[in-house]
């Protein structure tokens, strides 16, 4: 389900060793952290300060959907607010489109928020006394765009999210899913490069949520936007994200693609999380195949050229289908015209079960 990564590797948002410490004695705590490298626990004990985000580093590239997954209290909402400086970082450097946002003055910051960084909220935050159209045009309105022009842009944005017929209604007349679409349209109307999504679909029922997840991903990709998407739901992160960062207690525990996180969890915390995730569409042939040489030495009698062929990017679901079609219990993986490995039935089972460790040599 992953589309190919955008070729452009331009980093739009760059977060380097960012800390956020809350509390009355935060400045002293920050000093202690930067000078002595105190841990979260020590900061709480010595300074009575809560560490919201601890030494977080991440890069969001152009055209990428970057998910930040964590449970409540993990600091993900704080982290996303650091990216548009709704919260000031205590320590560290955040660069958006090459400009360090901590150094912007109030007017420059407003301009950056208005033009470059859109935001969608969990609570939707629609203005109840404005129509859907007026809500969608709000960002342009505060930027001083003339009424006709902003209404035209807002109407186009509402069309993109499928609400063209609802422009004259009030938010209270819309369902939760539709309200969140208005929130998305409002962010899109300003045509920002980066959209910050703060758990936008968490309050919706599962079916609508799924539908919006797919629509969001499709829309973001077709418009070439980058997004930072906060969620507490790993399945949502996997459905939507090109890359996923897992947060725990203010620390980014692991960053990687869905497949990397599922197949190579960084620690017990992450592996607990991924335990319940279906691997069928996540794990690809290249991580379950045996290299050709190894396979040949284990099964010298097998004629590799007679096997059905597939690409290294084929997921387990496709591999199972291929295996079922073939009269052999192995599939050859071909890259650039040459066989690079073989996926055996045993390998498939391991892939599904989540134990991708090496197979015994004698099959």
């Amino acid at each position, binding site marked *: 389900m992953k589309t190919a990564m955008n070729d452009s590797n331009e980093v739009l948002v760059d977060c380097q060793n960012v800390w956020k410490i809350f509390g009355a004695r935060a400045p002293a705590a920050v000093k202690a952290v930067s000078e002595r490298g105190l841990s979260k626990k020590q900061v709480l004990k010595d300074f009575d300060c809560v560490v919201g985000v601890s030494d977080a580093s991440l890069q969001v590239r152009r055209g990428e959907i970057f998910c930040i997954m964590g449970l409540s209290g993990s600091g993900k909402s704080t982290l996303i607010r650091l990216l548009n400086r709704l919260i000031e970082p205590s320590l560290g450097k955040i660069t958006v489109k090459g400009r360090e946002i901590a150094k912007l003055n109030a007017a420059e*910051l407003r301009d950056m928020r208005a033009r470059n960084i859109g935001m969608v909220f969990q609570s939707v*935050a629609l203005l109840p006394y404005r129509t859907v159209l007026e809500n969608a045009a709000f960002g342009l309105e505060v930027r001083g765009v003339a009424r006709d022009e902003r209404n035209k842009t807002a109407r186009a944005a509402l069309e993109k999210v499928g609400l063209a017929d609802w422009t004259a209604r009030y938010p209270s007349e819309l369902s939760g899913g539709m309200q969140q679409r208005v929130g998305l349209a409002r962010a899109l109307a300003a045509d920002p490069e980066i959209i910050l999504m703060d758990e936008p679909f968490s309050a919706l029922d599962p079916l609508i949520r799924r539908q919006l997840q797919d629509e969001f991903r499709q829309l973001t990709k077709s418009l070439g936007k980058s997004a930072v998407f906060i969620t507490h739901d790993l399945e949502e992160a996997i459905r939507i994200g090109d890359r996923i960062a897992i947060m725990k207690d203010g620390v980014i525990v692991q960053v990687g693609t869905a497949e990397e996180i599922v197949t190579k969890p960084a620690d017990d915390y992450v592996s607990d999380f991924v335990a319940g995730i279906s691997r069928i569409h996540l794990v690809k042939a290249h991580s379950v195949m045996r290299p050709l040489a190894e396979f040949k030495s284990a099964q010298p009698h097998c004629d590799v050229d007679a096997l059905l062929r597939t690409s290294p990017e084929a997921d387990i679901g496709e591999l199972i289908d291929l295996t079922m079609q073939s009269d052999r219990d192995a599939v050859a993986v071909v890259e650039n015209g040459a066989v690079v490995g073989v996926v055996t039935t045993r390998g498939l089972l391991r892939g599904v079960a989540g134990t991708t460790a090496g197979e015994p040599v004698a099959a």
Partner: protein
Amino acid sequence: MNPESIQVSPGTYLAPAVDWLNANFHPLFEAVTKFVEAVLGAIESALLFLPPYGVIVIAFVLAAVLVNIRVAVITGIALAFCFLVGLWMASMQTLALVTVAVTISVLIAFPLGILAARYRQLEAAIRPVLDIMQTVPPWVYLIPAVMIFSLGRVPAIIATIVYGVPPMLRLTTLAFNQVPKDLLELGQATGASPRAILFKIEIPSATPTLVVGLNQCILLSLAMVVLAGLVGAGGLGAEVTRGLTRMEMGLGLRAGLSIVAVAILLDRLSRGALQRGRNTRPA
């Protein structure tokens, strides 16, 4: 020790202060008196220029066009009542007095209320002052007001303002504190200026509570008109006072009901005017 000697009498300190103010700032107070009298006189003569039915028709049409037909009907009935009970002139005087007093109260209370919502220390400092303003019987601060501005409508307006400011101020602060945090965050995240956040998010979101504050301000100001009658401000208050001193049940009742009519009129008109343009439909 003699208990008499430790009695505290703030008046002994305040009275000389009032005297001093009177002696040194008399021209200023006179200017204030003249200005307020002029504004009041202008409103009064505007209301009394046309015959009563002319005013009633104009008020009805204006309310129908600017607010809605329901408010227009209520306006018409309230004004017609004042006319029919024979207290037209007194009612118009009271209307002018209350309009001026409420306008000044709001001009003081609204910005202060916003500031109090922004700065906690200011709110903490204002609160006890408001408590005193509301609980000290108005007769008490009428004394220095009369001493400074002499009898008439100006001390009545001052007393009315002192009474009308606290509810408006408190409810303005409450209204602004109640603006949902996520809407404020939305304003910031979309790059809105503080001014745009104030006018496009905060004030519209606060309007329902602000309307309640204005309503309280109007009702408390009207309650003060009786007192205004006592210091020679005329209007319905004077009629009530006359009814009381002459033990004329009829006059007192007519004047009292006219006050109610004026209250309903002002409340519905202000509410309607403020809620116009925010045509939120019920969910």
